[in-house]
């Protein structure tokens, strides 16, 4: 057999691989073009609070999934927690964590190969002796990732001890990074305090503040939708957009998290992080490039442009409420104050609705309504962009104007996009009615999307912080939220009530009604 390929093809294609500089080998040329080109190299991941639920439900399954997909293979995972577990015990626990979901189908050999990479350090978080074992446990891996999966009150001790032991320094040829779970503070002061503690040892480029919402495919798709499709951008401003609604509705209650939720509430738990992520990605300017700094800087600009809600204005622009006894999916459920771990006279909100304004050239005058709540009639996370009426409407049906167009971005449970457009009803007379043009994200990509933690962990391993929150982003959002919190406490804003299983409190409707608008149906 002879090989006789035409010159024209060779000439075209050879340019693509002429960049490889094999003398330096600063990068691995074999990685080029592979789907896992974001090769994390060898690393040791230390999970502080490894005996907790997050490790069991999210972290170990996510790491195993990355392993089974061949994306990571040269690593160690070291649990670090108080419980007097051994390496073998941790491995056995981890094996049980793989008995659910997609991991169940993996072979014993693959599970064994993964579990072999697990180790455990039993130590309290304030004991320097535990931190002295960290280096040996890495077994020569190049990178170090410290994952803080403990209650936030443990963060200071862990950060301080990591720093004192010198673990903030990157090992030769590697890196040292720290992942911090939410909540990043509970107001501006505590967020700043935590950030200052982190900054005492770690550079900002080493700090990864996680918000798992950013790991969701549809949230990431917001940027693609906006900046990869030219049809949206010309409409994406106050000339065409009437108002925006962002909804994060849950049907579940606080469950076993009553104690935690009492010190948090919907504003802290959902608005400061998740809702603001959606808001900023939806309204930010074009970042110019896809770098972490460029994207995060644009998000911060939006947060800085949010018109502050002063303590005098909280009753006008905010609504807070608690769910009362009601029925969800045919089952009677207790009110919030009857939940375990909740004070009978609790003033923690399980629902919040806000009217926001962005004072910039693009969005001035466009009200943005945000609501989130527990025990609402159904689980639904979505963004609705309502467009203005045409300048002159020719068509009326029964004397009524057709409804304005809207674009709905569904985030969960079903991911997709719907356009509401007006169409002629077939017949001899011109009757107009709205119809939906639906794009179900899942119809194009019908298999399940990666878990948010897989994406976020991988990003940290490869040093991409785009989907993590930067210090100024966290503090700017807290500055906005803290004003509301102070306003609520100073103004004694009433705590409204809504029955579990409803669409929310009556007061929330008033927030829109005075402008002649209504919340979207849940």
């Amino acid at each position, binding site marked *: 057999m002879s090989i006789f390929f035409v010159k024209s093809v060779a000439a075209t294609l050879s340019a693509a691989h002429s960049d490889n500089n094999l*003398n330096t080998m600063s990068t691995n040329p074999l990685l080029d073009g592979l789907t896992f080109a974001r090769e994390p190299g060898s690393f040791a991941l230390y999970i502080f609070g490894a005996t907790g639920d997050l490790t069991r439900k999210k972290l170990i399954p996510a790491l195993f999934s990355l392993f089974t997909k*061949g994306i990571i293979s040269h690593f160690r995972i070291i649990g670090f927690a108080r419980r007097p577990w051994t390496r073998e015990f941790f491995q056995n626990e981890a094996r049980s964590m793989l008995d659910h979901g997609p991991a169940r189908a993996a072979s014993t*050999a*693959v599970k064994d190969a993964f579990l*072999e990479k697990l180790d455990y350090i039993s130590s309290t978080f304030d004991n320097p002796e535990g931190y002295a074992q960290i280096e040996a446990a890495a077994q020569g891996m190049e990178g170090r990732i410290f994952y803080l999966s403990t209650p936030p009150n443990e963060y200071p001790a862990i950060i301080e001890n990591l720093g004192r032991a010198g673990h903030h320094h990157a090992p030769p040829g590697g890196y040292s990074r720290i992942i911090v779970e939410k909540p990043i503070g509970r107001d501006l002061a505590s967020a700043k305090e935590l950030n200052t503690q982190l900054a005492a040892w770690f550079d900002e480029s080493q700090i990864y503040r996680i918000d798992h919402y950013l790991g969701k495919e549809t949230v990431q798709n917001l940027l693609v939708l906006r900046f990869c499709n030219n049809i949206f951008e010309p409409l994406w401003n106050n000339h065409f957009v009437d108002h925006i609604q962002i909804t994060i509705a849950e049907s579940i209650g606080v469950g076993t998290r009553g104690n935690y939720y009492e010190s948090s509430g919907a504003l802290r738990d959902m608005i400061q992080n998740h809702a603001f992520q959606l808001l900023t990605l939806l309204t930010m300017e074009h970042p110019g490039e896809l770098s972490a700094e460029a994207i995060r800087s644009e998000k911060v600009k939006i947060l800085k442009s949010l018109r502050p809600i002063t303590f005098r204005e909280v009753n006008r622009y905010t609504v807070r409420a608690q769910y009362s006894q009601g029925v969800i999916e045919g089952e009677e459920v207790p009110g919030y104050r009857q939940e375990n771990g909740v004070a009978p006279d609790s003033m923690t909100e399980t629902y919040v609705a806000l009217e926001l304004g962005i004072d910039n050239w693009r969005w001035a005058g466009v009200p943005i309504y945000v609501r989130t709540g527990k025990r609402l009639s159904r689980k639904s996370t979505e963004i609705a962009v309502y467009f203005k009426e045409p300048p002159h409407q020719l068509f009326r049906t029964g004397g009524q104007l057709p409804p304005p167009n809207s674009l709905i971005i569904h985030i969960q449970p079903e991911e997709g996009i719907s356009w509401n457009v007006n169409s002629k009803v077939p017949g001899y007379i011109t009757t107009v009615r709205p119809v939906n043009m639906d794009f179900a994200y899942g119809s194009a990509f019908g298999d399940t999307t990666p878990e948010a933690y897989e994406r976020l962990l991988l990003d940290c391993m490869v040093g991409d912080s785009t989907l993590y929150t930067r210090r100024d982003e966290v503090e700017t959002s807290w500055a906005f939220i803290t004003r509301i919190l102070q306003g609520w406490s100073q103004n004694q804003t009433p705590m409204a009530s809504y029955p579990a299983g409803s669409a929310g409190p009556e007061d929330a409707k008033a927030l829109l009604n005075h402008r002649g608008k209504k919340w979207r149906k849940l």
Partner: protein
Amino acid sequence: MNKLPSPAEIERQLRRIQGEVSPNEARTSLFNLVIYAQPQHGSIVETAVNGLLGKRPARVIHIVEAQAETRIDVSARCVEDWEGREVCIQEILISSGPDKSGQSPGTWIPLLIKEIPVYIWWLKDLGNKADEIINLLEDQGDHLLVDSRSDANFLQFYQDFLRQGGLNRLPLDDVAWQSLYPLFKLTAQLFNPTENRELLPQLSQVSLEGGSPAEAFFYFAWLRSKLNWQGKWAEFKGACNAVDPQGGPVSCVHLRQQDFREGFKVTFKIRTGGELFLQGRTDGTAVLTSVRGTSFTAVYQAPGIDQVLFKEVDRDTADRLFLEALGAVAI
């Protein structure tokens, strides 16, 4: 030639059958898949199309040579997906009789769903068919998938295909190439630690035990494109020679033909002495051993035909690495 049902009649039948198997809302088809096959490919086609069930709604037009008169049969299969919606595969089986009318584009083009991509999977012999394939499918297909793993004349096909400017006329991919991706990944991982990466310019020989001749050829072609090896590969009879950018000779050897799922071994010899290994096992793992003898375990799964096809129908552009590899061996 007997009279075949009209496209409108076939559409009516498909709607009726799909309505029967899936009374609930079904997802819209994403692509057409046209399969040119011979009768012995039945189980391969079934396995591959089953891999799309519940994941990718599509219309599959399966053209298979037959002894009897040309005829068309339609069917539909639906599976509820993770969001509770029906994902349907609409299947049109064209049994192309001795008159070969079933293979004519004029028979199956009217059965395509318009405005969505057309993937063509050519399971028949390749050999000297490049001209025929291009002429037959250039105007109708958006993407061509062939399988050179069991084709002794695969290089002849590629030679003809490229001479015809085929890559510019019909984006091409090969199951033999796609099945190598897990091995590419393992190889990249083996050389990812700095100490191993620095040995890449010192490779003197790469030997592969396992895979088909086409897979071995493409594996070496990939290495060649990535490491800038030069020199003419006049032919491939299980071995090849090249020169690295420093002028050092590099040889490649295919030692044993064996399905990757039954194990494989890749040995990288270093000019200054020492070897690195990739050893695939049958339990879904592989051991990566560096020159110092240290090793670690990674997951290795040779993809089945269903996984290859599944990946292929999500691709809307040519595989850049494949083009680069073809370009590299063309020098």
